[in-house]
Each structure stands twice: as structure tokens, then as C-alpha cells.
């Protein structure tokens, strides 16, 4: 038989799986869109129409945490500092002066023990009163505990502070040795209530600032509300909202489209137009040369690098004239910056001559130089690397450009430095948030500094002297350090002091300053008339 009649008669009714599939697909799509995106606010109750009393900020990345003792990390500090939490003493970014915040006065007879008088009438967001116990707890937690707070490594190193509560309004802090800039160091500590855990870091901060933490929709946004019990002036906006987009052109688009009021980390290439506001951001770009291999064993070659780079042209053509040619690692406004120190002039002939002299003396000037640059560290960094490579090649050097991502770049940036085939020349971007050259010089110029390729005993002595000086002496001593570096040590070829750019919608008033990238003080933002 050709057919098996039993099979035909008993065959189950034909189903229509394809149609069923199509219906399932469409139905589930509609169902999924109907629901809001997982974890987001309801579409209806979302903050799309959040009203003009919410200040909307868009950042470059989601803060990994809002733990106040990590607030020297830019992505944490930009939300916390002076907005949710406050320090005892605060540095004015424009004048460089230290101003009272939660401490009203401070002084010391020997630069070692400091007595601080604390402000009264201050409460935390949880309603508790602020007094010296909280200040002591803050310092112990951030500096003396085993928490491993980032601010500890950045500001205090391995050293502990001795803290004593004299009375509820008076605190005594003793440094392990004379430290004229201890108040400046204290300005990095954001004050938290004494009940805050000393064994675990917290994700959601309680502070004394003008805004209190309200909600964190992980992955999406952070919401703050103005704190009614704030001791100072009430901020202009009742609510604040932070979102984040890693793509700078999208941040710029949000400003243009009116979806955000302030956007950080922009550049003119993002199409921000006149809604972009440039500001000097404390960052300086420089090349760090290692002298353990040829050709940088010879100081003349390092000098040649300085002469060979046309910094004026770079600043004008790559950065629209916004940046400023640099002669040292810290910009104006930082204690120790020398106004009289001139940048190395662009002199390609002199560069060639110096290279020839070194070669004649036996230095292998054709040895490979590995220029290590971090991808996407700042706008147009790859072009900058290429320009420098070209200019150094014209001076007679052999430069290989290597673009690396952050984690790999870091292995060349801090001790112990990773090995390179050729001589290492690292492009580094350094921001001196603190406003005092000690924070730069100790790291970058001491013989055993964490980011220092090499130093000399003479420079070390000058630095130690500067670290211990105060007032005008301090300024002069650090100026001497920078001048000495440029004349006798030449570890660096400085390129430029950079500018940052924020996007600012027409509906807000805000003047960015050098600290804007590290602490965006929402209380300084007001609605435009």
C-alpha cells in the first residue's frame, strides 16, 4: 500500500503553530512595552514632567558609591561634596583660601596640634545634632580605621591622626609631625554622624548638606531633596536628579533637547554650541620621561623633547585656544605655582642640535622610545599623541605610540612600573584638586614618589623643605622646586593646563570653576530669570 490509512484517519488535528507563534510574539512584545522597563519608575508617574523645581544633572558615569569617605573619587565626590555632605573646612576654588564650613575657626601654635571650634545649630539629615563627637568619628573612620577609604590614601598616606573631643564645640587634631597644611587635608573629609558604621562602607550618605539623599534607582538615577533643616541658605531647587550617559554627545544632546540642566565632561566636538561653558579644570598634561634606558639617560635628549614640541600650536589647533601652555605640573591658583616660570620655547633646531650632541657623546639616540598614552582620557588625546610623535621624530628621535586602556595604562603610571621594550615616556594627566603643590610634588617628583620616574637628592631636599614651610615661604619654596626641575632634572615635558567644559541649559545660572569637575555644588545653581 502506498498510504498508511490508519495514520491519516488517526492523525491529530493539524495545529497552526506558526500563527500561534506570531500571536505570542506580538502579544509579548506589547506586554513588555506596556510594562515599564525593569526597575524604572512607572511611565505615568515618571519624572519626565518633573517640573521646574527639579534640577537635572547628567554625569559621565554612575557613581560606584556615595560613601562620603570615598568622595575624593571624582564620580562620588561630584554628587556628595558640599551638596549632601560637608567638610569642617572648605577650600574656595577661586581664591584658594580656606573657609569655615562645619568648623568656624582653627589654629595651631606648632603646626602639629590644631584646635577647631565647631559650628552650632547644625543637624544631620536624620535629625541628629552635629557636634565634636561626630567630627571625631568622621576622622577616625576615614583616616584611622581599617575601612580602607580612598581619601585616606589620597590625603593622609599611611599616617594616623590623634583626635580629641575637648568639648561638644571644640575638637583637637594632632598630626604625627608638623603639618602646616593639615587644615587643607581636613577639607577632604566629609562629616558623617558618629553612628555611621566603622566596619562597613555605606552606600547611601547621611550628611549636613543643603540636599539630602532620597532615592537611588540603580543604573538609572539618583534623586535628592532639599533639606529643610539646613543651617545655611536654602537652595533654589526643591529636588535634584542625577542621571548618567557615557557618551558625551548624548549628554550634550540632553542639554540641547532640554532634558537636562547641567552636563559634565563635554567638549566642542559634542555639538554643544553656545550651551557649552569652558572653565579651567586644574588638569595638566605632561610627558614623563624615564631615565633608566637610552636615550633618556642623557639630559640633553630630555631637553630636546621639551624644545621639539610646539605647544602653542597644539593648544591653538587641537584645543581651540582654550587650554594654556604649561611650564609646570600645577596651574595658576595652586599654592606653589610659579608665574615667572616660562614654558620651554618651540625650537626644533635647538632640539636637533641637542640630540646630535648627545649622539656624538655616545648616547644611542636612535633607541626606541615607547610613548604610552591612555585612550579616551581626554578629548583628542590620540591626535595629541600623534602630533607629539611626529614632532619628536623630526627632532631625530625614534618614538613608538601605544594607546592603552585605563587598567593597562595604570601599570606604567604608578610604581612598580611595568617593563617596556624601549625607553618609557608616559603621557600623564594630573589634576591638583587640593590647591597645594605638595600633593603634586610629593607624588611626581620625589625620588621614590608613587608616580615619579626618578629624582635627585638635591630635588628631594628642596621638596622636603617646601613641604615644611608656611605662608609666603611655602610659595617661594615650591616655586624653587619647579624651577629646579625644569633646569636640572627635566623629568617632564609639560604640555598644557587644560580646560573642561560643562553644558548648561538656558534655564539655569551657574558659574563653573576649577572644582566643578570634582564637586558640583548644586546650591550654587539658580534658575535663570
Amino acid at each position: 500500500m502506498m498510504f498508511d490509512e490508519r495514520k491519516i484517519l488517526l492523525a491529530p488535528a493539524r495545529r497552526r503553530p506558526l500563527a500561534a507563534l506570531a500571536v505570542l510574539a506580538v502579544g509579548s512584545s506589547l506586554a513588555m512595552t506596556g510594562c515599564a522597563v525593569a526597575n524604572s519608575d512607572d511611565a505615568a508617574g515618571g519624572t519626565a514632567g518633573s517640573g521646574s523645581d527639579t534640577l537635572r544633572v547628567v554625569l559621565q558615569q554612575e557613581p560606584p558609591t556615595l560613601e562620603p569617605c570615598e568622595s575624593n573619587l571624582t564620580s562620588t565626590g561630584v554628587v556628595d561634596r558640599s551638596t549632601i555632605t560637608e567638610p569642617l573646612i572648605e577650600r574656595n576654588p577661586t581664591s584658594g583660601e580656606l573657609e569655615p564650613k562645619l568648623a568656624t575657626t582653627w589654629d595651631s601654635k606648632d603646626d602639629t596640634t590644631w584646635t577647631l571650634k565647631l559650628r552650632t545649630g547644625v543637624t544631620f539629615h536624620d535629625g541628629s545634632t552635629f557636634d565634636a563627637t561626630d567630627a571625631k568619628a568622621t576622622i577616625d573612620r576615614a583616616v584611622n580605621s581599617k575601612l580602607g577609604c580612598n581619601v585616606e590614601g589620597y590625603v593622609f598616606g599611611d599616617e594616623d591622626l590623634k583626635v580629641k573631643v575637648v568639648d561638644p564645640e571644640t575638637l583637637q587634631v594632632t598630626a604625627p609631625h608638623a603639618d602646616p597644611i593639615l587644615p587643607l587635608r581636613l577639607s577632604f573629609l566629609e562629616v558623617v554622624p558618629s553612628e555611621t558604621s566603622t566596619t562597613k562602607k555605606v552606600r547611601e550618605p547621611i550628611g549636613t548638606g543643603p540636599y539630602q539623599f532620597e532615592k537611588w534607582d540603580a543604573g538609572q538615577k539618583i534623586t535628592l531633596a532639599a533639606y529643610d533643616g539646613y543651617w545655611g541658605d536654602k537652595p533654589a531647587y526643591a529636588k535634584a536628579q542625577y542621571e548618567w550617559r557615557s557618551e558625551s554627545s548624548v549628554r550634550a544632546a540632553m542639554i540641547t533637547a532640554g532634558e537636562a540642566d547641567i552636563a559634565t565632561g563635554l567638549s566642542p566636538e559634542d555639538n554643544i554650541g553656545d550651551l557649552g561653558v569652558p572653565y579651567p579644570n586644574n588638569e595638566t598634561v605632561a610627558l614623563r620621561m624615564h631615565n633608566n634606558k637610552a636615550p633618556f639617560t642623557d639630559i640633553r635628549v630630555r631637553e630636546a623633547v621639551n624644545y621639539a614640541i610646539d605647544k602653542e600650536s597644539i593648544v591653538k589647533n587641537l584645543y581651540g585656544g582654550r587650554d594654556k601652555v604649561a611650564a609646570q605640573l600645577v596651574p595658576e591658583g595652586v599654592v606653589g605655582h610659579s608665574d615667572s616660570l616660562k614654558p620651554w620655547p618651540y625650537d626644533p633646531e635647538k632640539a636637533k642640535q641637542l640630540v646630535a650632541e648627545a649622539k656624538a657623546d655616545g648616547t644611542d639616540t636612535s633607541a626606541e622610545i615607547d610613548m604610552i598614552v591612555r585612550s579616551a582620557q581626554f578629548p583628542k588625546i590620540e591626535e595629541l599623541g600623534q602630533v607629539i610623535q611626529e614632532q619628536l621624530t623630526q627632532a631625530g628621535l625614534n618614538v613608538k605610540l601605544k594607546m592603552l586602556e585605563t587598567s593597562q595604562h595604570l601599570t606604567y603610571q604608578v610604581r612598580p612600573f611595568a617593563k617596556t621594550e624601549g625607553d618609557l615616556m608616559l603621557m600623564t594627566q594630573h589634576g591638583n584638586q587640593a590647591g597645594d603643590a605638595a600633593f603634586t610634588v610629593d607624588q611626581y617628583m620625589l625620588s621614590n614618589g608613587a608616580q615619579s620616574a626618578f629624582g635627585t637628592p638635591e630635588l628631594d631636599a628642596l621638596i622636603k623643605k617646601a613641604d615644611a614651610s608656611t605662608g609666603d615661604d611655602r610659595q617661594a619654596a615650591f616655586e624653587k622646586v619647579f624651577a629646579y626641575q625644569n633646569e636640572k632634572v627635566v623629568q617632564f615635558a609639560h604640555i598644557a593646563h587644560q580646560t573642561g567644559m560643562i553644558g548648561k541649559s538656558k534655564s539655569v545660572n551657574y558659574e563653573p570653576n576649577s572644582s566643578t569637575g570634582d564637586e558640583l555644588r548644586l546650591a550654587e545653581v539658580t534658575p535663570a530669570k
Partner: protein
Amino acid sequence: MLTYLRKRIISSALPLVVVVVGVFALARMTGNPAALYLPLSATPEMRAEFITRNGLDQPLLVQMGNYFGGVLHLDFGTSLRTGEAAGAMALRAFPATLQLAGVTMALAILLAVVVGSWAALKPNGIIDRIASFFSMAAASIPDFWLAIVGILVFAITLGWVPTSGVETSASWILPIATLLMRPFGALVQVVRGAMVSALSEPYIRLARSKGSGQRRVITHHALRNAAAPALTVAGDLTVGLVNGAVVVETIFGWPGIGKLMIDSILQRDFAVLQACVLLTAIAIFTLNIVIDLLYALLDPRVRPAAAGRRRARRTETPPATTPPADAPTALAGAARP
């Protein structure tokens, strides 16, 4: 069916373990992440303390043992970056990507079936040529560029949709439209090709001669047979979407697992990376099982029960009713007078 499912689940478990072990070992070979988490001025003692605190100084096998021990208690470790539980972070981010990938694929498949079938009706006709052109373009356009241009045109210039984010239902439009292009483009080509083959089969002519309308011919006969290759490609594309929505997630600020994975790679956040990879791998293995089940649904020849019956028939002695091969057939017999 259940036996089949059980077997597939068990056979997926081994590759899963291999994937996780592989990522575990490879991630740690990238070196010490301390430099990413500590300030640049941290002393060597602080770096050593960081390594010890996070158990990174132990031998690799010990670390792996600890990790899998934790996994058995559903503890996937802690994020170096945020201090939160890595498993919770991955689980929180995953649904957003699933929603995005799910809706995108459903729409892509639907549109591709419609356009591909339409194009296949008259091969090399005008519709076919237009569809080919657009589907090739769609499959080739880089999603990054499309996303940015989409924002520029539809969000900024026209103001029809938001630029990014997940606030409103309208926020879905640009991300899905961007993500849709490549799968749609690839699928149209596959569906069109499979439909052209299916439509040239003899059973189509038979169906038409029996009086079936065009619609029934397409949906009931041709599409059912063209579905298999389309399903294979669709399955591959969905897997690619779950992993590769990272560009769209990054640009539009979509809180999905793709972006979480990239960030954890760049930040050497081992626990989160492992949790993300584990979750994504489970999803992909599940997806493959689902695709196999769909095959069985669509094509009875592929069903495991059918395969069993075929095997059984081959091993039995032939039943007496089956005529010997050289016996005349009924037709042949009827032909003889």
C-alpha cells in the same frame, strides 16, 4: 519531551561550568586591579592590603574553590567597585536587556517574515529589489552611528522622542529601532531565500491546483517549511543581541547587563563579570533549548518521539503486511487487464 529537556539541561551544565571557569581564570590573568581602586599615591602596603582583603593573593585554585563554594549558597561574590552583591547587580540589570532584546527580536522576526515573504512572491521583481537593497543596508549600518544620528534627527531636530534614558514609553522607540536594523536586515534575506525555495517546490503547485488562496499557500504551506532556516538565524541573532546590545545600552543609558559587563571588564570587577557571564550563558543555553523545541513544533520530522519511532521501526522484523519489494503495486496491477 521531559526526558529530552532533562538531557539537554544536563548537557548544558558542563559548558556552563567551563565558561565560568574560563572567565574566572582569564580575568585574573589580567593582573592586579588594585591600581584601579586605590588612589595613585597609595603605598605598596596599601596595595598589598587591598589584595589580601579581596582574597586575590590566594592561589587560583583556592580562589576558584571559594567561589564555587559560594555559588552553591547562591553567593556570587561582592563587587570591588560598589561593594554590593555581584549576583544582585547582575540580576537587577538583566531584565532590562531581556526586555530590549525580546521586543526587538519579536518585531524583527515579524517584519522580516512580512517583507521577506512579500519579496519572495516575485523574485527579482521590484519589491524584491527594494527589499534587498534596504535589508542589505540595514544589516551593514553600524549601530553606533545609527543611534547617534537617530538622536540627532528624531530627538533634537524633530523632538518626537526623548534622546535617551528609560523614563517614558517613547524612550523605547530609538533603542529598539537602532537594535532592530541588523537582525531585520539579515532575517529578510534569509526568509526571502527560504521562501523562494519553498515556493518553487512541487507541493505549492499542488496546493494551488487544489484551489488554496495565495494567503493560505504562503502561511500554511510555504512559510512553515521556510521557518526552519529562519529560526536558526533568528536564534543566532537573539544570542548576539543579548550580548551585543551593549552599544545601544551605553548610548541610550539603558540599565542593562551589556553595559554592566563592559564596565566590569574595564574596571576588572571580577565578581560582577563572572555573575554577568554566568547569567548570560544560562540565558543563551535556555534559548538554544527553546529553539530546539520550536523546531520540533514546526517540523514533525525533527521530534524526538518521531526519531524514536524511526529507530524502533528499523530494528523490528518487517511486519507480514508489508509487500515484498518486487510485488506489483495496486496501480500497476490495475493497469494490467
